[in-house]
C-alpha cells in the first residue's frame, strides 16, 4: 500500500510512481496513480505485470506540490534551491522477485528437407528447424528428437539434444533457442516420415514440452549400376558369316522403389555404327538384377567390334553404361 499526504496549503499534488530495476535509474514500469486513492487513508495498492525472470525492483514514489505558495513566502521552508517553488518528497522501496518456475515452450518444429547422407549405399537424413523458448530460470534444457517411419510404432532414429551444444540462443532477450536444418538419420527407405521433439529443463523433467511434425514423403533418387557386362565366349558359324556371342550382364538399381521405368539396351557396334540392338524385356531386366543374365546374340561376323549396354530410368540420377 502506498499513501502520500500533505500538510498545509499545498494546492493540487502531483504524484508519480514507477518500478525501476534495482540499483538502476532505468524505469521498467510506470504505475498509474489514482490521486483519490493514494491520498486517502487507505492508500493505493499498485498491481503491475512484470517479467517472469528473477529481478530486484525498486518502487519509487515521488510527490510534488507545484501550486504551493510564492517563492518569497516559502523560500525558507522549501527543500529546493533558488527560486524553485516546488515542494517535493520521495520514497523508495526495494523488493526482489525470485523468478518463476522454469517455463519451456516449443515454438517451432518444422520439416525442412530430406537428403541422402552419401548416396544410395548410405543413410537418408531428415532435417528439421526447431525453436524452443526457455526462461532464464530453466538454465537451458535437454531433450530428444525422434524420427518415425510410417507410424508411431516404428521409431527409426533418435538424437539427444542439449540447448548448450545443439542450439544457439538466437533471441537472448526472449530466451529463444534455435537449431536450423538439424539432421537425424535413418535407413534409406521410401515412405512417410515424421518427427517428435521433447524438451525438458532437467533430468527430473519438472517442466517439459512436446511437439510432432506432419508426415512427409521421402522418395530416394534412383541409381543404376552396370555391375558387369562381359563376353563369355563366341563361336563362328561354319560359313564364318555369322558369329554367336555369349554375353553376361549383371545390373543393379538402388533407391527403394524409385527406379520404376527401367530399360536396358544391349548394342553391338562396328566402330561407331550400331549393328545390333536388343531391348531387355521386364522379365530379363528383373533376372539381370538378381544374378548375371547370360544370353547369346547372333550377328554378322563383319558387324562386330564392341558390345555396349545402356541402362536407363527416367528417375535415375544418371544412366549407366
Amino acid at each position, binding site marked *: 500500500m502506498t499513501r502520500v499526504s500533505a500538510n498545509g496549503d499545498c494546492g493540487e499534488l502531483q504524484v508519480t510512481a514507477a518500478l525501476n530495476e534495482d540499483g538502476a535509474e532505468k524505469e521498467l514500469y510506470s504505475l498509474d496513480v489514482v490521486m483519490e486513492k493514494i491520498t486517502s487513508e487507505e492508500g493505493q495498492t499498485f498491481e503491475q505485470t512484470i517479467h517472469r525472470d528473477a529481478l530486484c525492483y525498486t518502487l519509487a514514489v515521488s510527490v510534488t506540490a507545484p501550486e504551493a505558495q510564492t517563492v518569497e513566502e516559502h523560500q525558507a521552508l522549501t527543500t529546493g534551491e533558488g527560486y524553485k517553488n516546488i515542494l517535493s518528497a520521495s520514497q523508495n522501496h526495494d523488493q526482489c522477485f525470485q523468478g518463476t518456475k522454469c517455463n519451456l515452450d516449443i515454438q517451432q518444429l518444422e520439416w525442412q528437407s530430406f537428403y541422402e547422407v552419401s548416396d544410395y549405399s548410405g543413410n537418408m537424413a531428415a532435417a528439421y528447424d526447431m525453436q524452443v523458448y526457455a526462461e532464464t530460470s530453466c538454465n537451458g534444457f535437454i531433450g530428444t528428437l525422434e524420427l518415425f517411419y510410417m507410424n508411431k510404432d516404428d521409431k527409426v532414429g533418435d538424437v539427444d539434444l542439449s540447448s548448450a551444444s545443439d542450439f544457439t540462443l538466437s533471441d537472448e532477450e526472449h530466451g529463444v533457442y534455435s537449431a536450423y536444418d538439424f539432421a537425424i538419420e535413418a535407413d534409406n527407405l521410401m515412405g512417410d516420415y515424421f518427427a517428435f521433439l521433447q524438451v525438458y529443463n532437467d533430468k527430473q523433467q519438472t517442466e517439459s514440452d512436446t511437439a510432432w511434425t506432419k508426415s512427409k514423403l521421402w522418395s530416394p533418387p534412383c541409381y543404376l549400376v552396370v555391375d558387369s557386362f562381359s563376353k563369355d565366349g563366341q563361336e563362328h*558359324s561354319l560359313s564364318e558369316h555369322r558369329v554367336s556371342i555369349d554375353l553376361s550382364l549383371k545390373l543393379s538399381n538402388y533407391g527403394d522403389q524409385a527406379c520404376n521405368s527401367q530399360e536396358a539396351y544391349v548394342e553391338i557396334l562396328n566402330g561407331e555404327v550400331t549393328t545390333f540392338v*536388343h531391348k531387355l524385356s521386364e522379365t530379363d531386366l528383373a533376372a539381370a538384377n538378381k544374378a548375371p543374365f*547370360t544370353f547369346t546374340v*547372333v550377328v554378322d561376323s563383319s558387324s562386330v567390334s564392341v558390345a555396349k549396354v545402356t541402362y536407363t530410368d527416367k528417375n535415375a540420377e544418371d544412366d549407366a553404361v
Partner: protein
Amino acid sequence: MIDPVYVAEAATTCEIEVREFCLTSMTASQEEGRFDFKFDLQVVAAPVCENLQATLDIVDTQGEYLGNVKLNHDELIDAIECDCDKHFVVTADATGLGDYYGQIDIREASSGLIEIQDSCVYTNTVDQ
C-alpha cells in the same frame, strides 16, 4: 572287314542355330494402321532341346519396337522345331514406309539358353 559306320555323338546340350531368318514382305492388313510381316525362318535345334519358347519383335528404321505384335506362338515353335524352311506371318502396328526387321528370341528353360538374332532388313517403298 568293313569299318563300322561313323555315328556322330548326339549333342548333350541344347544348341540352336538359326540358319535362315528373313523378313521377305510386308503388306497392309485388313485392320487400319496394321501390317502383315512375312518371315522365312529355318532353325536347327539339337534333339535335347525341350520346351522351346520364342518371341519375335519387329523394329523399324528409328529403332522403335512395333506395338501390338500378334503372332501364333505354336506356329513359331513349329517353324523352329520342324527343321525346315518355314514361312509365317506376324501382324503389328506400323506406319508403312521404311526399313523393318524382326528380332527372334529363342529360349530353352532347362539349359538357360537364350539366343537372339535379327532378321534381314526389309525396305518397304510402297505407301499402302
